């Protein structure tokens, strides 16, 4: 079977793999889309403190109870609060983000370059796109994980030598988790750390435009 037709990880499994990256007790901001799913896979005993840039620290899961329009996350979804949660205004929230108080941000991605540049807000051929809080999170979080699909729907790589879409920020990405691989961004470029179950490192390399350093015995993701 040609590599591009082999099954890839679901969005949920990508989120599950990202959740393994979150240190116990850390403060984490999850972007809209696939990153939002990470909340469900963070074990409660890890005591992750989730920040939402509209002014909430310490939210829990998604609310399935009565809707309260004053209690939504940055994606506008109704949420619950954990004990110890707090509220603040948008200037305070982004001071928290830009001031380096967020340990990890998880953002969606459209393209990542070999230097860790991120493009995640606009697809030029479709026009439009909105920045939201992504540019602030990309430069402000101490560690940035990008959760995205390894290729476009028509099979073009999203991990590139140079991003061709409008940038969110330069040299900001620390780790890329895709439906095929875990790729680390270092000062000397990209390193393939893990592959999705059933995928060979060489198959991932052919679907990646940027050069990947591949050490012997790259392990499969443990999910």
């Amino acid at each position: 079977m040609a590599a591009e037709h082999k099954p890839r990880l679901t969005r949920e499994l990508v989120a599950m793999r990202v959740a393994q990256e979150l240190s116990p007790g850390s403060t984490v901001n999850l972007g809209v889309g696939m990153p939002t799913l990470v909340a469900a896979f963070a074990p409660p005993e890890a005591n992750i403190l989730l920040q939402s840039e509209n002014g909430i620290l310490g939210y829990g899961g998604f609310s399935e109870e009565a809707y309260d329009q004053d209690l939504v996350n940055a994606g506008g979804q109704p949420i619950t609060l954990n004990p110890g949660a707090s509220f603040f205004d948008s200037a305070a929230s982004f001071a928290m983000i830009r001031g380096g108080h967020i340990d990890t941000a998880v953002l969606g991605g459209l393209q990542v370059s070999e230097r860790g540049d991120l493009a995640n807000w606009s697809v030029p051929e479709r026009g439009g796109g909105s920045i939201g809080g992504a540019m602030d999170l990309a430069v402000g979080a101490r560690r940035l994980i990008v959760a995205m699909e390894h290729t476009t729907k028509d099979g073009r790589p999203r991990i590139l030598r140079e991003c061709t879409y409008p940038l969110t920020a330069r040299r900001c990405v620390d780790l890329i988790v895709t439906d095929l691989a875990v790729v680390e961004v270092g000062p000397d470029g990209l390193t393939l750390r893990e592959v999705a179950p059933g995928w060979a490192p060489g198959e991932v390399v052919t679907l990646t435009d940027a050069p990947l350093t591949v050490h012997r015995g790259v392990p499969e993701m443990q999910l």
Partner: protein
Amino acid sequence: MTATIYETTDAALDGISDGARVMVGGFVSASSPTNLIFALKRRGTRNLTVMATNIGFGDRLDELCEDRQIAKAIASFAVRASSARASRFEEQYRAGEVELELVPQGTLAERIRAGGAGIGGFLTRTGVGTQVAEGKDVLSWQGEEWLLERPLRADVAILKAHRADRLGNLSYRMAGRNFNAVMATAADLVIAEVEEIVETGELSPDEIHTPAVYVDRIVRCDPVEVRWDGR
């Protein structure tokens, strides 16, 4: 100075003229001043520059586009990445009929904060090397590049809080502070809709998020239910 209490939202908007620069508080559904937005629509004021973190993302601000009252928006969420499902604002934006200044959300909040605090600008790493940096000064400091961002002020801010006292102190509920509490400081005329007005002294000093000094007009309204389907 004590805030003036208005009986209706229409009366509370008295004096807003065509071409006004209007800040609109709220974040998606949370503490969005929907009653005042509806009143601005009824008023028919045109050629507005609106500043809001979102337009057409679960808010009702987009309805001002029905009669083309908005000439320009300064926002962080205004246009989707795909045109499959477009707000009225997006349709008019894609047709070149309205102007948009897209601002990173943190930069938007801080520009407004600076505008309200008498600060002439600030340096941030947000936006360096991106489209946001176009036309702006880039300064080097401590081995990094920083963008010089300028303050934002408005003629009018329309806000929503949970409770006010007669002096004009405001208290928000849950995630309702968002841009409301920042915009309260940065407009010449600040108008807040609230769910309840209590006697001065009934709000504990500890629960006042926007001190009365910032607030000019208050009007009591039942909140309008707003719910975004996330698309």
